[in-house]
């Protein structure tokens, strides 16, 4: 049986009294940022879609394939042992990032979508039955909506939704009413990928538990941006994607409490997830491997471990301070520099992550994004996989700027300047 232990890493010291992040210095760690696009410095403002990767992560992928590549948990030889040690060591690093004590509670997946589907299939198919209620919110990414629709259709269960206010905050009073329906599960996003709203996850989890529900939190936009302590939050399931958290694509995480994981049936069947296989039945492996059938993306998960260390070295408190500053700056500068711009989401940076959706009246967000690209500014345009939220706010689409540790105030100035060009071109 494989045990999970971390290879020795340099122990980091606690950041003294929250010195601000030096984004300019951090940028030097991200090789991709050192390029020009259409004759301008690349201004990457789409980190909510996927983050860029620090050199340490890129180097880890390279080193893994050059030196350690072998299948995990199989070979009795040096390479396989190194690959396994790296793969399992990464679990410990991610456990530390989330303040999880037992790394066996960290399940590797491909992304947040797979993590949530795992819960919907494995836990959901066992525990949800006809007439049961699952509470979601109006601001969910499709990844935390469609798996529950599939489950509800199959089981004839009911979905209820916590509505939002016009500035994108969850109606906690309505949540209290919905809890009287005695839901089996409450699933909500920690931070909205479209509006940036930071939800009061601890408080919501406590109330959901008091009503007898389990809680799943979609942390795809939280883990990369702010301190996440799953013990303090107290939820039952917590999901995120590695690629938005400075890690490689193909890396993802589901955390869940051990008792839940042990009681859940496997998600997929195959190699690695079994202890003993007979022709007509099998015994499952222990957690986490019970949920990791088949050869995983070993390099990606190792890379995610390195990304987790990188984030912890930066200091998640400092990263949050940095993004709070950027949001405040953007909410202040954009309306002044770009008269007429429409901004959405909560205007209080205290409850808002590094996500700024906007529209220029008279200009479709696709066109705004296309013109911004001429100036090297990369923003996302569309519905950001939150169609029901756009419908609720009566918006066809929005453009969205989103931040990371390497984002600077200069980047926001470049966005403002680009948007002035958009307005000039379209005569609005």
């Amino acid at each position, binding site marked *: 049986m494989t045990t999970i232990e971390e290879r020795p890493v340099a122990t980091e010291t606690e950041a003294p009294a929250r010195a601000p992040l030096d984004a300019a210095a951090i940028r030097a760690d991200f090789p991709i940022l050192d390029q020009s696009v259409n004759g301008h410095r690349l201004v990457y403002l789409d980190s909510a879609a996927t983050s860029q990767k620090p050199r340490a992560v890129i180097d880890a992928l390279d080193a893994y394939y050059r030196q350690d590549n072998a299948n995990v948990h199989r070979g009795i030889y040096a390479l396989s042992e190194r690959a396994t040690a790296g793969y399992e060591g990464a679990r410990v690093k991610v456990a530390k990032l989330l303040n999880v004590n037992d790394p066996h509670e960290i399940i590797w997946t491909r992304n947040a979508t797979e993590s949530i589907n795992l819960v919907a299939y494995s836990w959901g198919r066992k525990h949800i039955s006809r007439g049961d209620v699952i509470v979601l919110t109006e601001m969910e990414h499709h990844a935390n909506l469609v798996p529950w629709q599939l489950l509800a259709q199959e089981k004839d269960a009911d979905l209820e939704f916590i509505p939002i206010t016009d500035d994108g905050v969850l109606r906690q009073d309505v949540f209290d009413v919905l809890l009287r329906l005695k839901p089996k599960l409450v699933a909500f996003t920690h931070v909205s990928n479209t509006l940036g709203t930071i939800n009061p996850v601890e408080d919501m989890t406590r109330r959901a538990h008091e009503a007898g529900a389990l809680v799943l939190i979609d942390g795809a936009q939280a883990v990369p941006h702010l301190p996440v302590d799953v013990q303090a939050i107290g939820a039952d399931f917590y999901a995120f994607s590695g690629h938005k958290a400075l890690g490689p694509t193909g890396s993802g995480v589901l955390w869940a409490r051990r008792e839940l994981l042990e009681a859940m049936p496997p998600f997929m069947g195959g190699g690695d997830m079994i202890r003993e296989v007979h022709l007509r039945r099998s015994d499952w492996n222990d957690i986490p491997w019970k949920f990791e059938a088949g050869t995983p993306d070993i390099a990606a998960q190792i890379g995610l471990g390195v990304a987790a260390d990188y984030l912890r070295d930066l200091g998640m408190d400092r990263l949050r301070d940095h993004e709070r500053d950027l949001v405040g700056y953007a909410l202040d500068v954009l309306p002044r520099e770009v008269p007429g711009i429409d901004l959405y989401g909560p205007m209080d940076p205290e409850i808002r992550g590094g996500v700024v959706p906007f529209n220029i009246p008279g200009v*479709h*967000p*696709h*066109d705004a994004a*296309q*013109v911004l690209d*001429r100036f090297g500014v990369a923003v996302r345009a*569309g519905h950001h996989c939150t169609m029901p939220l756009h419908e609720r706010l009566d918006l066809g689409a929005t453009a969205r700027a989103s931040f990371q540790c390497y984002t600077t105030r200069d980047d926001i100035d470049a966005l403002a300047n680009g948007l002035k060009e958009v307005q000039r*071109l*379209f005569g609005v």
Partner: protein
Amino acid sequence: MDDLYRDYILEHYRRPHNFGVLETPTATYEGSNPLCGDRITMQLDVEDGVVREVGFTGRGCAISQASASLLTDEIKGKPLADVSSFAATDVLDLLGIEISPARLKCAMLSFDALQHLLDELGAKPLANDPA
């Protein structure tokens, strides 16, 4: 400065031709681009095998609105047989600008709606993937 946002494209975007709802449509189709949430409703009024009137409504980017405006201008007054022979590349010719792969769906939103209308009218069966 721009190859994409030429003056005539922006002009069609701001004041699209044939924008509106028909009083006596023969066929109506509502299409959307799931990638960006853009929608278009297109209507044809066909009499004696000829497109008498065409109208569209909806919201979209400059490329999708300009292409709808240009396309509806092009087919108005034409026999269905001629409209049926109109191909996707003809829409690109009408637009007269370089369309990147990412914007092709925008440019083709109205053409796609037209293909559904032609199918409904029995003038041209729908290909498997009209876009």
